[in-house]
């Protein structure tokens, strides 16, 4: 991903998004500007309703903005048709979801091959690429296991392998550790760091300060606006709690709490979802 810094991977200028819910208009984004260079590791934090999910959907090209400009590698997304958007999602963006979103009865291999199927990669090449991706996430030995035979962490690794298999410019993760216990979540974050050190651009959307603390840059959102955007020194593998928790609870997008590395240990018990919920049926 050798990109010059003058040429941002993602460029967002005064982006707005208005949802119409019956008579009411919901302003999910009220003018967001953001530029992300190749090779960055960015966390987008904020409470639910802050607009971070909407922003993520825009960045992931799953949704179109109401106003403003969004460019991926210089291409303006509003000018693209449905097929071109699908192609961009397929080639440039890898998605990692909170609930993994794996197909219920497919082997790890088949899961990882899915984006390659839509990219039209030949069967033989696809198998090789999928094996490589699974090896990169440390699952080279479990290519023929189905989700029910894998732990939550392993399932998320499969999902990450699926996200990186097509060598995207950007990995977009939505609460990637939200369904994992602290230890397993830690492994996933370590994996992210490895991938980042290999040159991958990462955007992690989270309300968990522990997760945000691992990023090199934290973008805080509130009420549809970016209220803070700061570069930080990422914390390394965190034997939480390293620091006393601040007074404000974790999801509050207060600038202070976010910029405190490892400020908030995992206070709420995380749900461990061993079974896949609906990615396929």
């Amino acid at each position, binding site marked *: 991903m050798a990109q010059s810094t003058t040429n941002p991977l993602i460029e967002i200028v005064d982006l707005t998004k208005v949802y119409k819910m019956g008579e009411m208009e919901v302003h999910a984004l009220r003018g967001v500007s953001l530029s992300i260079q190749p090779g960055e590791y960015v966390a987008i934090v904020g409470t639910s309703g802050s607009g971070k999910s909407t922003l993520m959907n825009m960045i992931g090209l799953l949704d179109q903005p109401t106003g403003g400009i969004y460019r991926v590698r210089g291409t303006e997304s509003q000018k693209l048709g449905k097929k071109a958007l699908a192609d961009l999602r397929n080639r440039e963006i890898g998605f990692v979801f909170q609930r993994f979103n794996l197909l219920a009865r497919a082997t790890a291999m*088949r899961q990882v091959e899915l984006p390659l199927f839509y990219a039209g990669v030949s069967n033989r090449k696809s198998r090789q690429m999928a094996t490589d991706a699974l090896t990169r996430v440390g699952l080279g030995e479990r290519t023929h296991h189905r989700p029910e035979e894998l732990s939550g962490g392993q399932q998320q690794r499969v999902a990450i392998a699926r996200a990186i298999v097509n060598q995207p410019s950007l990995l977009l993760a939505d609460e990637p550790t939200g369904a994992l216990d602290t230890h397993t979540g830690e492994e996933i974050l370590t994996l992210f760091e490895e991938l980042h050190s290999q040159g991958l651009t990462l955007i992690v959307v989270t309300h968990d300060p522990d997760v945000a603390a691992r990023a090199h840059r934290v973008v805080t959102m509130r009420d549809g606006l970016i209220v803070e955007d700061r570069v930080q020194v990422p914390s390394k593998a965190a034997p939480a709690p390293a620091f006393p928790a601040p007074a404000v609870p974790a999801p509050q997008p207060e600038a202070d709490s976010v910029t405190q590395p490892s400020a908030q240990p995992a206070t709420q018990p995380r749900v461990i979802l061993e079974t896949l919920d*609906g990615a396929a049926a």
Partner: protein
Amino acid sequence: MKILRYFNVALESIFSHKMRAILTMLGIIIGVTAVLVTMGIGRGAAASITGEIASQGTTQLTVMPGALNTGGVRQASGSSSTLTMGDAEAISDRILHPNVVLVAPAYTGSSQLVVGDTNNQNQVVGVTMDMFIVRNWEMEYGRFFTQEEIEDQAHLLVLGATAAKDLFVNVNPIGQTVRVKNEPFTVIGVLSEEGGFGGADDQAIVPLGVAQGRLFNAARYRGDYTVTSIYANASSEELVPMAKAEIERTLRMRHQLDVDDSNDFSIIDQASLLDIIGSITGTLTIFLGSIGAISLLVGGIGIMNIMLVSVTERTKEIGLRKALGAYDSDILLQFLVEALVLTVLGGLIGVGLSFGIGWLVGQIPGFDFEVLIGIDIIILAVAVCAASGFIFGLYPAMRATRLDPIEALRYE
């Protein structure tokens, strides 16, 4: 070919939901089986009946007294019969009837056949030598009459297969005496079994003169003995209409019918008989087939139903696939191919099942014809299945395509 890869996706989806797939296919399976088995039985029956008729010779013509109307042959009573030996002789003229090769008059009556204590009511048919050839008879035992025996009006008897069985149990009928109207007749032969209907199986055959004279004292018309039927053969199948026309012309002339008089006789050929039977079995087949077609339709709607459920159930999967770069057309094809695979697979299972049922039906005692399941019907049934998969799969597939990826991903 990218489209081939959707078959893998479809097969994976079907095999990971075996129970649901089988239930979905059940409607199609039953529909196809119903269509194939009913059509097979209809065709088998038609083939069996036409086969019997054909075995009696497709060139055969039968002239009967009385007009043929929709109710069948209206048999004139014996005394008013105008069909005579003279008519038979006239038809035998090869110069006036170049397309009629054999003419065999017959006089049929009904009488008790008595052997010792055994006593059966049978048809007794007086015939000439040519009848043996015209009717394609074969001898099982013994022999047929000679020309001299027929001319001499010998008291000899040839029995149909069933008649012989009924009269003689564990006894060789040849040389035995049968009493008909108190006249003793010696059995000289037994005919091979013909099967079917209207055959000679339960008849007793005697020389024509004996039946017309001593046995039944046939009426005379203008000095000639009357006959109950005249059998004739056309020289070939194609010339049956010509032969019919020649006979009709002669008989109308001899019976002095005016131009606007209707025939006082009927000429029945096998082809017209086949037509009648063909139209009956055809109607039956269409009727049964349409019942099957309705169940196919119901099966198709079942497919649509399940596919709609499946789309809802897989909302999240669809959202994921779109996020991973699937085009709308990819989603459309995935669901369409899945519906197609389900219906065609169901159709093929139905084909297999209908062969099994066809075989089973053939094993039922007394069911004396084959269930004929032709390749054309199979192709038609599978094509209809594929079409219904396409038609009934399209709407659910379009629903899947229209799903918003964000909404779909958020769906729980």
